[in-house]
């Protein structure tokens, strides 16, 4: 069968690793090996059940950042798509799109570097403030502004790209609906409310479901790159907690336990959000 090499890779790197979760129930010692390491039952899960303060910080930071980003990041591509869609000139639309899509293809290392270069202590903004003898703004490395900073980075990188799916949905709305609404005397605002938004409602729902399913995962590479100066209290999230405890500190069992619970809850969230969509009569990620 032609698909065999691909299938082998899928199984090896998506399914076989699931067996590795067994070390969540073991006291894994690398040189002893996975099989020979002693079983310890639920001991590694104690950080979750007993509410280890570091774990709770990571959990609450994750949830707060996720919710902030759903509130502030999610609507931006929708608004931007509506704005682009209302442009009359196809050429201007295409030029603006090419510019706004570009940051999506940058790596997080590049985006973080660019932000430091614009907003850092020696960056463009603060050098200018200094040359005008104004007070400089400590934005990078400031724990209080960390959530705002990473949220604006996500908007900068992906808001343009995020418009694609909404633009596709907008282009599928029947023009006759607008004409009928205009004949009925609907203003542009009323057309937006009664024709445009209902027309893209199911796509908005779909994207929101995918976001909700991902609520425990927030920009891992992005945050890992910027944790140093900010400190763990403001910036530790579940993924960085797993990385720090497992790979850096060698506390493999605990890290695997937290990762396993996070993964299971994540799958349940996707399935739950999908169920919720069906209840509201929407299509969901997959059909029933």
């Amino acid at each position, binding site marked *: *069968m*032609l*698909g065999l*090499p*691909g299938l082998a*890779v*899928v*199984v*090896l*790197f*998506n*399914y*076989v*690793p*699931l067996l590795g*979760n067994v*070390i969540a129930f073991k006291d894994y010692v*690398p040189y002893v090996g*996975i099989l020979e390491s002693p079983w310890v039952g639920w001991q590694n899960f104690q950080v979750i059940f007993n509410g280890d303060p570091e774990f709770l910080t990571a959990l609450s930071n994750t949830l707060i950042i996720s919710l902030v980003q759903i509130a502030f990041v999610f609507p931006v591509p929708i608004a*931007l798509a509506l704005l682009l869609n*209302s*442009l009359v000139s196809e050429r201007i639309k295409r030029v*603006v799109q*090419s*510019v*706004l899509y*570009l940051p999506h*293809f940058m*790596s*997080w*290392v*590049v985006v973080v*570097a*660019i932000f*430091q*270069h614009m907003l850092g202590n020696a*960056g*463009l903004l603060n*050098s200018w403030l*200094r*040359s005008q003898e104004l007070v400089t703004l400590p934005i990078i490395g400031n724990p209080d502004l960390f959530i705002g900073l990473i949220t604006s980075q996500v908007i900068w990188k992906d808001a*343009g790209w995020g418009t*694609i799916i909404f633009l*596709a949905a907008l282009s599928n709305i029947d023009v006759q609906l607008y*004409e009928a609404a*205009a004949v009925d005397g609907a203003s*542009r605002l009323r057309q937006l409310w009664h024709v445009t938004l209902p027309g893209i409602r199911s796509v908005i729902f779909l994207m929101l479901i995918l976001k909700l399913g991902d609520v425990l995962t927030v920009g*891992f*590479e992005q945050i*890992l790159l910027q944790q140093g100066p900010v400190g763990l209290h403001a910036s530790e999230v579940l*993924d960085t907690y*797993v990385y720090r405890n*497992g*790979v850096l500190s060698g506390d493999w069992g605990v890290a695997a336990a937290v*990762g*396993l619970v*996070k*993964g299971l809850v994540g*799958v349940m969230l*996707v399935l739950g959000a999908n169920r919720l969509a069906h209840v509201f009569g929407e299509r969901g990620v997959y059909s029933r």
Partner: protein
Amino acid sequence: MAPPSPLMRGSKGLLLMLCCAVVIVPFLSVVSTSLASPAEVTAAGGYVLWPSQPSLDAYRAIFAGGVVTRALLVSVGITVVGTTLSLACTTLLAYSLSRPGSFGSKPVLMIVLFTLLFSPGMIPMYLLIKQLGLLDSYWSLILPGLISGFLVIIMRGFFLDLPGELFDAARIDGANEVQTLLRIVVPLSKAVMAVVGLFMAVAYWNAFFSALLYINDTDKWPLQLVLRSYVVNDTPVGAEGFVGEVAPPQQSLQMAILVVSLIPIVLVYPFLQRHFAKGMLIGAVKG
């Protein structure tokens, strides 16, 4: 429909121009700083918005040091090998999933679809790479990302849309599956394969965490990790190999490395841009 009022149009235009400026100005400043002279960088107190006497000294310096050159070669190698293998495996898998009645295609499709619901997790993945003996091997950066379920589904959707008569004709002419794929399907799917391939290439080029996790030997670091250590973590960029009067300032060196890491993306972007609106969306809506 009544045309929008001039005020409305003006404010819309202004808003969009602002959005574009927010994206363009940082890039402009990155390139300018990489080209600026030491005196200008000092005068500006760090970064420059427009160089008055552009020079390529910073680029000469980073390529004289050797670290950036080596990292660039590593990244290019991983991207080329990875993308080629990835495109080949994805096409074969998507094709075999698109043929009706091919052996076991239902369960295999489920296996692929299921991967969209979960990811294996960092620790188990690390253990697997370790068990396979791939730590510190470039294969650890290539193999795990070889197949993306999402791209397989997109490609399969495209293949399913090809007219069935073509396959009938090929069969009557005595073509086997491999011949049908190479002579009929691939030539008709160049656009979608180009888009999918470029997405794979961008993903390989930009990968940073997998290298941090699996590659301990700094001599094997790809460009993104070198970029992190020099530009994000402010490790001083060595310019020992530089022959000239004044070594370029750190800011220029850092921004030069950043520009080098962006060049491949900027080169493929116009091509990508022309195709993705078509290719991706057709697949995405179907998938």
